[in-house]
């Protein structure tokens, strides 16, 4: 909310803080100031100038040559504005002045004539966008006086952030009360200049009150618990006096006309949204507060928008039709304008929830609905109306006709809340006496039943009736007014919690560290994706390009690879662990899984002068896939070549990861051509996507095995393997036929090409044999090798190379 510093000072005469001080103070009371601005802050050099003469420039058709009284002498000024005229007053920037935006005014010769300053347009002094002419000002001025002072621009507007529970702070009085309570002053309402001081008489009733032929009726007391109306006749609609305009501008509001400004003034001062109807345009004349009737389905609000209305909404109607959306916005047809002479002033109490659903359904939020949603003071309604009438009479004239009509189906009753002193200490950790509680809460308007030393019964003032309803709410008020900083902050002992650390975090951390150690960078990408990458749709997306939650994570990384390519980066190695969303059924929450995605492209190793660069290849990606799958699935996962639909990957260069139960849990390989928008210099892009296990299996502690004491014997086999026989099958056969003595079998070379029979390749395998209890003899090993070779030939058609 925009708060005028000068207004606060008027409300708290004892306020000894400057605007900065107020901001600091409010921050520590829970209402921080987001921004402070002063329209006059940059206009200190500008003065009020009186144009004495204005004649044509002798050498230029479009320029005038003027004499300006600027207080310290008469200046000669060349002016380009069409609206300059002798005898008028304008903002004047003398030589040496610096204007907003940094323009410095210098003495200059323009087309041969000396100019000793500048008459300013609104745009030049930052007061608007108008640059069609200079800003003529009206009033009683002295030449050379400060422009800021003369125009009342020395106020400071503070943008105060009000939390959703504190509707009472949506007014200058509310803020003033908060300041005053701590400065031991008191907030009081200043006198309205020109207020004739008429005391209203009242006529109260329900559901209908009538006087002088004007009738007000509440048909729906659940949504409107009170409606006060006052008839004022003979008003003269026109601009507000300067004090009222200044006051409104200081609070960031735009002056409109005296009656509307009066209602806005009261809203900004007391927090009561009010509305003035043109009485002559109300059928009846009557006000009926009711739901729309069948057939009443549209309504044109003040902002000239025709809106759809529904039976749940509360309308303010005249004798025939709706004239306003209750608590949200008035209607165009009954608006006060320059022809208006008689007005009906409204001040009412609406149900916050109904206001909220109505204004949401209408897709709008107004100053009024914002306040009603958060709750306005139900206690001071009559005072507010009395004051509003004073402002209208002072600024628009007229007279009050008859008693004020107070339709009141539910009279507000103040709440009394119990407060146990022991509970305060249980929550806050510090004892508070009853006397101290009184001292803290009384200045905020809380009153106490009885004056005992023990537990307390506390009456909540109307303006706090919305947020203080329970004991804990009072305890918060005590902590807040005592000052959070006044509480000690000694770290005490604590009991350990019962919640075990979720092992998935540790597994994710382990994977992250393993991948970082292999030279990958962790990426973070938001989960929103375009159509085709997910089946869970956001129903109210703001970004319609990416309305889905991702099912797979890799495409998000591939887009980041593209972005890196577009910036000329060739080597990109990214990974991310993120949530994948999957639709399970209509109306149900989606299933969520944690996925690891990896995208790689470029050189295998960091460049070094000692060796030529090698691009990443399929074996890098297979190895990485095996390592992460093994880490995630504790060694139970297998990586095998993919068959069938390769998806995001290129057929023939894709692997599938299966968990211990044989279920596919991941894929990896070369990303399909065309999926990534790559420049010509870019290398192949490799990708991996691995689902994390549903349950994290604890890692079994390794059990010690004695390290071998006896030497090993190695044999190298050079095999001619038909292309149809996979290397894995060869290795598997070797292992099966050498079980007892074989320690390890490693493929150390594969050769394809010249000198080999058709459709065969040469695979070299190194076998290492060892016996745990003795030294192996060559002959014994040779026998085993011969046996293996025989089986390879027999089972697979694999022969030793000659």
């Amino acid at each position, binding site marked *: 909310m925009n708060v005028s510093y000068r207004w606060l000072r008027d409300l708290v005469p004892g306020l000894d803080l400057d605007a900065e001080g107020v901001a600091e103070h409010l921050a520590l009371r829970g209402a921080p100031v987001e921004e402070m601005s002063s329209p006059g802050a940059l206009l200190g050099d500008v003065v009020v100038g009186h144009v004495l003469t204005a004649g044509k420039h002798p050498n230029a058709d479009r320029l005038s040559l003027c004499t300006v009284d600027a207080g310290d002498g008469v200046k000669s000024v060349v002016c380009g504005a069409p609206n300059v005229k002798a005898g008028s007053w304008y903002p004047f920037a003398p030589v040496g002045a610096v204007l907003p935006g940094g323009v410095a005014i210098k003495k200059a010769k323009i087309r041969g004539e000396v100019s000793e300053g500048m008459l300013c347009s609104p745009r030049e002094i930052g007061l608007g966008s108008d640059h069609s002419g200079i800003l003529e000002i009206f009033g009683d001025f002295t030449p050379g006086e400060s422009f800021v002072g003369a125009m009342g621009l020395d106020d400071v507007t503070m943008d105060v952030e009000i939390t959703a529970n504190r509707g009472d702070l949506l007014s200058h009085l509310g803020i003033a009360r908060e300041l005053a309570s701590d400065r031991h002053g008191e907030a009081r309402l200043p006198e309205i200049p020109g207020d004739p001081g008429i005391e209203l008489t009242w006529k109260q009733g329900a559901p209908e009150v009538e006087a002088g032929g004007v009738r007000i009726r509440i048909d729906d007391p659940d949504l409107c618990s009170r409606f006060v109306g006052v008839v004022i006749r003979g008003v003269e609609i026109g601009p507000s006096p300067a004090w009222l305009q200044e006051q409104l501008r200081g609070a960031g509001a735009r002056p409109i006309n005296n009656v509307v400004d009066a209602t806005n003034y009261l809203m900004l001062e007391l927090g009561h949204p009010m509305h003035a109807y043109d009485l002559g345009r109300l059928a009846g004349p009557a006000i009926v507060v009711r739901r729309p009737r069948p057939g009443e389905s549209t309504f044109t609000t003040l902002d000239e928008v025709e809106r759809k209305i529904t039976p749940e909404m509360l309308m303010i109607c005249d004798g025939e039709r709706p004239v306003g959306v209750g608590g949200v916005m008035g209607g165009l047809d009954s608006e006060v304008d320059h022809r208006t002479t008689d007005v009906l002033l409204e001040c009412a109490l609406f149900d916050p929830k109904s206001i909220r659903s109505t204004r949401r359904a209408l897709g709008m939020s107004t100053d009024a609905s914002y306040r009603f949603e958060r709750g306005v003071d139900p206690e001071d309604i009559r005072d507010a109306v009395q004051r509003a009438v004073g402002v209208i009479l002072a600024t628009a004239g007229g007279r009050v006709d008859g008693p004020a009509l107070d339709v009141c189906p539910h009279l507000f009753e103040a709440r009394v809340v119990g407060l146990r002193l022991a509970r305060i200490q249980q929550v806050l950790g510090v004892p508070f006496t009853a006397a101290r509680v009184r001292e803290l809460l009384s200045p905020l308007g809380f009153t106490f039943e009885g004056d005992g030393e023990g537990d307390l019964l506390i009456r909540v003032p109307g303006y706090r009736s919305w947020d203080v309803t329970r004991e804990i709410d009072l*305890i918060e008020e005590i902590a807040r007014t005592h000052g959070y900083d006044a509480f*000690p902050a000694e770290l005490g002992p604590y009991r350990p*919690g019962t919640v075990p650390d*979720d092992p998935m975090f540790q597994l994710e951390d382990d994977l992250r560290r393993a991948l970082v150690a292999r030279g990958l960078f962790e990426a*973070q990408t938001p989960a*929103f994706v375009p159509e085709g990458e997910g089946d869970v749709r956001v129903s109210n997306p703001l970004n319609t390009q990416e309305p889905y939650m991702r099912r797979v994570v890799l495409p998000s990384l591939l887009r980041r690879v593209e972005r890196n390519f577009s910036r000329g980066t060739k080597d990109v190695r990214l990974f991310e662990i993120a949530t994948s969303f999957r639709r399970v059924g209509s109306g149900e*929450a989606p299933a969520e899984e944690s996925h690891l995605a990896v995208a790689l492209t470029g050189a295998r190793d960091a460049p070094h002068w000692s060796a030529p660069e090698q691009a990443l290849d399929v074996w890098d990606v297979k190895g990485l896939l095996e390592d992460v799958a093994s880490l995630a699935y504790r060694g139970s996962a297998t990586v095998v070549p993919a068959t069938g639909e390769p998806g995001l990957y290129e057929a023939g260069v894709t692997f599938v990861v299966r968990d211990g139960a044989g279920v596919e849990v991941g894929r990896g390989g070369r990303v399909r051509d065309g999926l990534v928008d790559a420049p010509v210099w870019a290398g192949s892009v490799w990708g991996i996507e691995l689902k994390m296990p549903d349950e994290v299996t604890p890692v079994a502690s390794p059990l010690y095995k004695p390290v071998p004491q006896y030497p090993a014997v190695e044999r190298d086999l050079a095999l001619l393997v038909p292309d149809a026989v996979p290397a894995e099958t060869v290795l598997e056969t070797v292992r099966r036929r050498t079980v007892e003595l074989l320690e390890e079998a490693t493929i150390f070379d594969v050769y394809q090409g010249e000198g080999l029979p058709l459709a065969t390749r040469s695979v070299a395998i190194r076998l290492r044999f060892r016996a745990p209890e003795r030294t192996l003899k060559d002959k014994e090993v040779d026998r085993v090798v011969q046996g293996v070779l025989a089986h390879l030939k027999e089972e697979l058609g694999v022969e030793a190379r000659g």
Partner: protein
Amino acid sequence: MRGLIAYAFFVYHRIAMSETHPIDALKALEAEAMAAVAAAEDEHALEDVRIRFLGRKDGRISAILRSLPTLSPDERPAVGQEANRVKQVVSAALDERGTALAAPKAAAGEDLTLPGRHPWKGGLHPITQAVDEIWEIFRDLGFTRARGPEADTEWYNFVALNTPLDHPAADEQDTLYLVDSVLLRSHTSPVQMRTMEKHEPPIRIIAPGWVYRRDTYDATHTPAFLQIEGLVVDEGITFIDFKATLAEFARRYWGPDTQVRFRPSFFPFTEPSAEVDVKRFIRHPDGSTEETDWLEIMGAGMVDPAVLDNAGYDSERYTGFAFGMGPGRIAKLKHHVDDLRTFFDNDVRFLRQFSK
């Protein structure tokens, strides 16, 4: 007389020689051979050294091995063992030197100012690093980690947390919905309720995770971001514990000279509620110091009794505190990143700056 002296010298020399034990002689020979190996500048010179010491015919070490039978049976085993050892050592040194001399010439007399070889360097995302640093501090303060779903229900995200859907507080986090009452959680606070449902007090957890808001991307907002929730519930937890724990965290994270400020605020699920601000005191390497403005780092408060009631806890017996912070915002402040979108761009030139 002169002849006598010459004779005496001869006798003396003989005695001195004979008193040099063969093992000592072998050690001297080893040292001599190793020096010769090291001094060999090319493969020819190295071959000469081999012949001189290990040559079958005239090699000096070979000679000693050949003379073993002439020694007394007492001496023989020890001398034999030592001679074999020296032979092996020298032989290995010859091989090694030979390999070195045979290596490409680039290695010899090389320019050692050339860059060394490094593997690719990777790194954790700076926001993950912030999460990890925060987690490590809370781990030391006795916390564990909990998690909950990112797509959750209105009950967990709002209602159970004392935020009626028809209250304006439900607006402040403009929420993305999936279907009906299923939404993308707008904060990590639903994990509070989910954790309390499954576990009895004492509760002492943090819950890092993604949250979603109906925002557009700009310098200070992204529609998805990481948040870290914290919850402590037990008997006897007070506002003092709340302040102390979070102030301790802030000083450990931002430095011991950090000032911490608690400002009243409003969250429907905590009461009293607070914003926590820090003012950092930075010592620059050049000795100068700097005090920052107050930086808002988290929202927090004492758990509202209504939340404990909704979790089935006895709110008259248990009290607690909760907090939430954005590691993205903290990383932004810490590394002076002026636009949150930079974090999601994942330009490797950016990520590399946070490599450790």
